[in-house]
């Protein structure tokens, strides 16, 4: 766990060196649209600022069409011969499959309410990143080939020919949208850019085009059960290591149940929790927490991924990857499923899982084994969010908590896009945070809860391959964090999403390096007062505590 201990100390943030631009310079955005009409502005792929195409190997693993070697700056994208026909057939098919798609093609009035709501437009100023215009990229094709007025009037009706440049443009901007749905909150008709981006990506996929940052995880997840491609024994090794680390810090030797049949609960987390440094701390925290409450549960190596990059690929891929959850729950004969801190995982569970892979009639309606609370809201999907589960425990007084053990942390909370706008998980995490931490400050109202910003790296964008775009997209969230850092001394940005944990760390290292990122249950585990605990002076990430922990004492007083 060496990488956790060492605090990153740099004069000039790493990304500043890579980019050669200071935050002040990068945040000087020119919002003035070009003089040329947007249809006449061809897409450009700036050096080191595009996502690399999906690799042939991984395309083949998941049977995607036209795998090939190509690169966005290339003139020739090696499109299949009948690419136009494939694209338009695919579009026609989807117009008949998704009412959302047909409707969203038809009813936009271009009122512009969404324009300055997208983090990529705010941070970058490219007019094609205004959700309305990003949608028009596809809508203009729709008009040309699927509406009478567009066929007759052409440009006057806002229609344009489908050309190779249009395909390139769609590729560029479909991967500058994180499907975060912030625009859809403000749209008077609820037009959801995420839905349009998802379809656009499906259409590109028909031509064998997608980004490797999404397709490789999909392929790996398909084979190994997780995006990282961690093999079963590797996960086992990692978990043993985390168990030992936990013992070193707290003195508790806990069990790590893996692939155990007959457990009551199957626990599924994003694979970042096995690997990413902040996720690992969350895993250590969870081990302690579950040990404390005596949960009868198991981890699974086959379902070692809660996240689902299928969501960023195609509706079909959502189902293909998600199928493992129920399959494993059935095989292990558990009663229900508990899901960890993850973002888009919860969009899939809340909005897709029951539909694509249900009904889960072999499971039982979830009941908390400790409080007896029935999770009525999850009675069909049979999958409960860990924040719901924990909030219920705290409410029933089943956890002895000492929030002063987190006094070295001054926290703010970032609502992840998907649990916010595709689920509505707002109060549960806040309830937990307020019970485990004395210093909690909200960011401004206009950028939390349903209006929360995306980290800038969701939907397969969370890589420094297109570093500039990523940092620009990340800017609004990091800027709000900086605001509470300066105002309240906030030093920890809490979130419940693996991509957030990774991308916000990248972004903050550039925009506001004084703030670190962490999970909510990390603070919960820090605050747990557990019978038989040993004295310690550090928290679970081995940061010094304000006041050393004396067993049996809460906030320094006798318990």
């Amino acid at each position, binding site marked *: 766990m060496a990488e956790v201990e060492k605090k990153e100390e740099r004069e000039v943030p790493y990304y500043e060196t890579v980019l050669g631009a200071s935050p002040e310079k990068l945040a000087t955005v020119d919002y003035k649209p070009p003089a040329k009409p947007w249809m006449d502005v061809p897409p450009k792929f700036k050096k080191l600022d595009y996502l690399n195409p999906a690799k042939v190997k991984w395309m083949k693993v998941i*049977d*995607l*069409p*036209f795998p090939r070697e190509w690169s966005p700056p290339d003139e020739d994208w090696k499109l*299949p011969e009948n690419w136009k026909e*494939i694209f338009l*057939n*695919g579009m026609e*098919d989807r117009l*008949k*499959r998704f*009412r959302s798609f047909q409707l969203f093609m038809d009813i936009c009035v271009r009122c512009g309410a969404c324009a300055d709501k997208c983090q990529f437009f705010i941070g970058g100023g490219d007019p094609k990143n205004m959700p309305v215009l990003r949608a028009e990229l596809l809508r203009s094709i729709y008009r040309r080939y699927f509406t009478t007025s567009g066929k007759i009037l052409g440009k006057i009706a806002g229609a344009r020919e489908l050309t190779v440049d249009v395909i390139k443009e769609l590729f560029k901007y479909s991967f500058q949208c994180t499907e975060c749905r912030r625009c859809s909150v403000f749209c008077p008709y609820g037009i959801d850019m995420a839905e349009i981006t998802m379809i656009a990506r*499906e259409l590109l*996929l*028909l031509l064998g085009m997608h980004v490797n940052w999404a397709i490789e995880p999909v392929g790996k997840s398909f084979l190994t059960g997780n995006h990282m491609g961690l093999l079963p024994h590797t996960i086992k090794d990692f978990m043993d290591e985390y168990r030992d680390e936990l013992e070193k810090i707290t003195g508790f030797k806990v069990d790590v149940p893996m692939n155990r049949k007959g457990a009551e609960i199957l626990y599924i987390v994003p694979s970042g929790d096995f690997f990413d440094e902040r996720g690992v701390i969350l895993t250590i925290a969870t081990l302690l927490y579950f040990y404390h409450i005596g949960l009868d549960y198991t981890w699974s190596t086959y379902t070692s991924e809660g996240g689902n990059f299928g969501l960023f690929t*195609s509706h*079909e891929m959502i189902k293909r990857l998600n199928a493992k959850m129920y399959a494993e729950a059935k095989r292990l004969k558990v009663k229900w499923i508990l899901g960890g801190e993850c973002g888009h995982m919860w969009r899939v569970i809340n909005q897709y899982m029951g539909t694509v892979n249900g009904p889960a009639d072999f499971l039982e309606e979830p009941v908390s084994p400790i409080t007896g609370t029935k999770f009525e809201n999850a009675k069909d999907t049979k999958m409960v969010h860990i924040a719901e589960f924990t909030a219920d425990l705290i409410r029933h007084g089943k956890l002895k908590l000492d929030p002063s053990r987190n006094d070295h942390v001054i926290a703010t909370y970032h609502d992840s896009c998907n649990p916010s706008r595709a689920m509505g998980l707002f109060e549960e995490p806040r309830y937990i945070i307020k019970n485990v931490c004395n210093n909690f400050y909200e960011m401004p109202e206009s950028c939390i809860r349903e209006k929360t910003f995306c980290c800038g790296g969701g939907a397969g964008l969370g890589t420094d391959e297109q570093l500039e775009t990523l940092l620009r997209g990340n800017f609004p969230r990091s800027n709000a964090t900086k605001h509470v850092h300066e105002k309240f001394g906030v030093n920890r940005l809490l979130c419940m999403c693996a991509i957030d944990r990774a991308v916000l760390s990248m972004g903050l290292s550039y925009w506001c390096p004084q703030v670190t990122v962490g999970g909510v249950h990390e603070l919960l585990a820090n605050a747990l007062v557990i019978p038989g605990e040993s004295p310690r002076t550090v928290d679970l990430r081995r940061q010094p505590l304000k006041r050393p922990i004396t067993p049996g004492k809460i906030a320094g007083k006798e318990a």
Partner: protein
Amino acid sequence: MHEEWKTLFDPSSPKQVPLVRKFFDGWKVTIGLIVFLGISILPFLFDLGKAAPPPPEPKIDTPEIQKMVEKKCIEPKSFMKTEHMVMLDDWRDWYVREGRSIYTATDGKQYNISLSNTCMKCHSNKKKFCDECHNYAAVTPYCWDCHIEPKEEG
């Protein structure tokens, strides 16, 4: 081992997965359409089966007008038809606010500025002259908020 799987991503047959074509949310959409249709044809429904009502025919057959040799108003008929409300409004302002009591018509003749004593002297048949059109066009002048409405038979 696998059940028969399908895909939307085989471009040689993009429609391998059959489409479902039927009406969804049937009753909700039906209610919506009925409401829409109802509102659209509401005016038609009101008048269903009725013949078009005869247009109003304002009468100028009062005794005072009968007595006139040349039956004409203080200004030409076409002007009076469209501008009488403006004239009455002007009259009120001139009389009440400026104290003027004489109106000089375009033909040079002079009249007392008075609704009751000039206009209604000839047009003593308010119901048949004023109300006929005003009711038809749903116009509610507020002359009689202040002026005393002339008494009429029938």
